[in-house]
């Protein structure tokens, strides 16, 4: 009996890996065709991507990018586990980064106090922004998808309004960039010096901790079990004693709090201010990465690294005379394939398991008595 159990588990693992693998392979095929269509050699392109992608400075760049993407992926995944589609991660992190940057610029306390304050402020802002959608959903039944899309636009407008010289922004010397007051250097987050390869952002440590916390809370705590229950079946959750509405609002808030962290690696390790060229759209990248990583903490990490790798290497391809749109093609195809592949693999896996269980039971029942009820 144990043997069979472990076999089913192994199979499940295999099925789990099959979908993203299938998607990446399909994306490679499509990309090959696209490059061929533009009259270039795809083999050269791929080998360039690999050699360039594994250079040490590229590795640092990819890890730094992946730190941000990982946090975005986790923020979205928290919603997904709950059957909530938090499209608003984008607005949540931008607003959070902006408010945190304003606070950071204004603080005059020592770094050991300022940094946690900035991070907490970002998380609180993200959580509050997400809470609006969560509360609308549980009290008025407003779809969180619509509410968060709207809130994204509102966040953009609010930031644009406040980030003006004379309000919370200031013009730089060149007169082209508006930004918040820069953080004092005492509020910079630590980083690892990797010599000529550049600096590895210390925030990666926080990202790892977030991943561990995500895994632990969902998989090992009562709260996480309740959350997953609601995600799988609201009716069963209600019957089992979970306050479904409260859980929806809570998970939206947690998703928003993690979203608040997305801008922190950039703010604390790199830009040290929020300017109008602060990276935007990472919330949407997070959706793709959460899908790719199957909402699994390690899967999301792999997805984030893949995204960083693709971005780094296709940028370089551009200098080799390839079209830079290749990046969009690869990413788009991966996401599309992933969604299809998961559904196909999931259905296949469920059906296959039912058949196996049936076959196993039939065999068990046939052994002792021939005419036993096989249920």
């Amino acid at each position, binding site marked *: 009996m144990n043997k*069979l159990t472990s076999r089913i588990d192994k199979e499940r693992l295999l099925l789990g890996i099959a979908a993203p693998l299938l998607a990446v392979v399909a994306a490679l095929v499509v990309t090959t065709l696209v490059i061929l269509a533009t009259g270039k050699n795809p083999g050269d392109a791929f080998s360039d991507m690999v050699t360039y992608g594994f250079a040490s400075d590229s590795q640092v760049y990819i890890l730094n990018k992946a730190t941000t993407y990982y946090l975005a992926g986790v923020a979205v995944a928290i919603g997904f586990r709950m059957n909530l589609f938090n499209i608003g991660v984008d607005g949540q992190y931008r607003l959070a980064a902006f408010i945190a940057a304003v606070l950071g610029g204004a603080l005059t306390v020592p770094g050991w106090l300022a940094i946690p304050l900035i991070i907490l402020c970002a998380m609180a802002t993200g959580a509050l922004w997400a809470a609006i959608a969560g509360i609308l959903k549980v009290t008025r039944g407003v779809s969180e998808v619509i509410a968060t899309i709207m809130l994204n636009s509102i966040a953009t407008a609010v930031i644009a309004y406040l980030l003006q010289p004379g309000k919370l922004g200031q013009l730089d010397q060149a007169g082209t960039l508006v930004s918040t007051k820069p953080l004092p250097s005492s509020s910079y987050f630590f980083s690892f010096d990797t010599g000529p390869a550049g600096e590895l952002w210390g925030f990666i440590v926080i990202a790892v901790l977030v991943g561990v916390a995500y895994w632990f809370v969902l998989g090992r705590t009562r709260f996480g079990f309740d959350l997953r229950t609601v995600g799988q079946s609201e009716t069963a959750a209600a019957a089992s004693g979970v306050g479904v509405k409260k859980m929806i609002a809570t998970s939206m808030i947690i998703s928003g709090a993690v979203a608040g962290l997305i801008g922190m690696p950039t703010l604390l390790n790199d830009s040290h201010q929020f300017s109008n060229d602060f990276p935007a759209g990472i919330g949407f990248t997070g959706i793709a990465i959460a899908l790719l990583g199957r909402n699994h903490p390690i899967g999301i990490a792999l997805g984030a690294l893949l995204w960083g790798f693709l971005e780094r290497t296709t940028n370089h391809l551009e200098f080799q005379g390839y079209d830079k749109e290749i990046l969009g093609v690869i990413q788009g195809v991966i996401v599309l394939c992933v969604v299809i592949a998961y559904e196909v693999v999931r259905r296949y896996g469920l059906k296959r398991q039912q058949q196996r269980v049936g076959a196993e039971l039939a065999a068990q029942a046939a052994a002792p008595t021939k005419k036993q009820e096989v249920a």
Partner: protein
Amino acid sequence: MKILYGMQQPDEGTITVGGEQVVFHDPGDAIARGIGMVHQHFMLADNLTVLENVVLGAEKLHGIGGKARARIKEISDAYGLGVRPDALVEELGVADRQRVEILKVLYRGAKTLILDEPTAVLVPQEVDALFDNLRELKAEGLTVIFISHKLGEVLSVADEITVIRRGTTVGTVDPRGTTPKQLAELMVGSELPTPETQESTVTDVPMLTVDGLHLAQTDLDGIERIILDEISFTIHKGEVLGIAGVEGNGQSELVEAIMGMRRPDAGVVTLDGTDISHAPTRDRRESGIGYIPEDRHRHGLLLEAPLWENRILGHVTEKPNSRGGLLDLKAARADTQRIVEAYDVRTPGIDVTAASLSGGNQQKLIVGREMSHQPKLLIAAHPTRGVDVGAQAAIWDYIREARREGLAVLLISADLDELIGLSDTLRVMYRGRLVADADPATITPEELGSAMTGAATGHLEHTEDDAR
């Protein structure tokens, strides 16, 4: 019924329509042969008009404009349906929606109509109106198959009655020469009830007291439908209280009210001396209510989760599933293994998903789970529905055992044999009220059946002669 409408394929047997043997692969085939189905749950788009709903999917017949409207008027007038083509469906009440469903089927040229429990959602006056419509249809030469639990209705509307029990035809009778009692006999079978309890274990310590439970709901017409009406009863330790009744007479709502999943308008629920009327569901479960839900897929299981996670479901705050705020996976898994063995859940392991088990084994897992937390009260709603015969006997045994150990059991079932065999006290629920009570030691399924249709109320006495 699903086979007749082409939704499922038969293993054996034939269907003959108008003298011609036919095979239906999908509902389209059935519609083409003039068979139409009016589902119990309406399949209408609320935000469209009646006209749009009727032509949806049948645009080829008469288009979507004036011709379609004329045809709808024509059908509506011919059968006295009184349908307004331009009304929005969301503005219609239940009875009107049902008429739209019937019209939809007629519009597609149906000559044979299947109505699945059409009266379950209607109030008495609406039932009468529906029967008038059906008689019109009949007069126009259409065939109607009317599926119902309610004996009185079947007798009043049908020209011929076929009784199906546990998947086989047990008889075909003429309603003119048949009494409800004879029909009930056919429905429940005259064999002796199998699930028999032995000695009484009823004590005089009340475990669950429900007092004056009242629940009303206002539908779209603004008509207030009373779902639970002054429900009061007491279950003592070691007592099984059985509630008989045709489904949809408020049983599900009663269970949900006791579980705290639905807030009644008035009434007090007391468990073991503690007022739990306002306690959340989780507190009620923790204080000792075990729950075998009516629909195990919706309320009892996480189908895509492994068995051991399903073992935690509903008892996540209790031992052995968790300690403090943390899950104790090792203990939960070990206990799942124990349940699987003790309750004979046939599965290759505890890591398979709940969906891959058969209904009977899913149910045994649920029973095992609920019995593993020393419940004081067990609510069992249709505990053996959709369960094979072997598992059925096992589940009856567990309920009897629980009763011996001093549990109070609220048993709700449509299986009269099960009710009579397991219960110490019987109540009959009809249109949201407990209308009758009976002693399971003397009552017969036929007598119970007539009370279920509202024909008899008060205390049901078994009479030796056929006075009733």
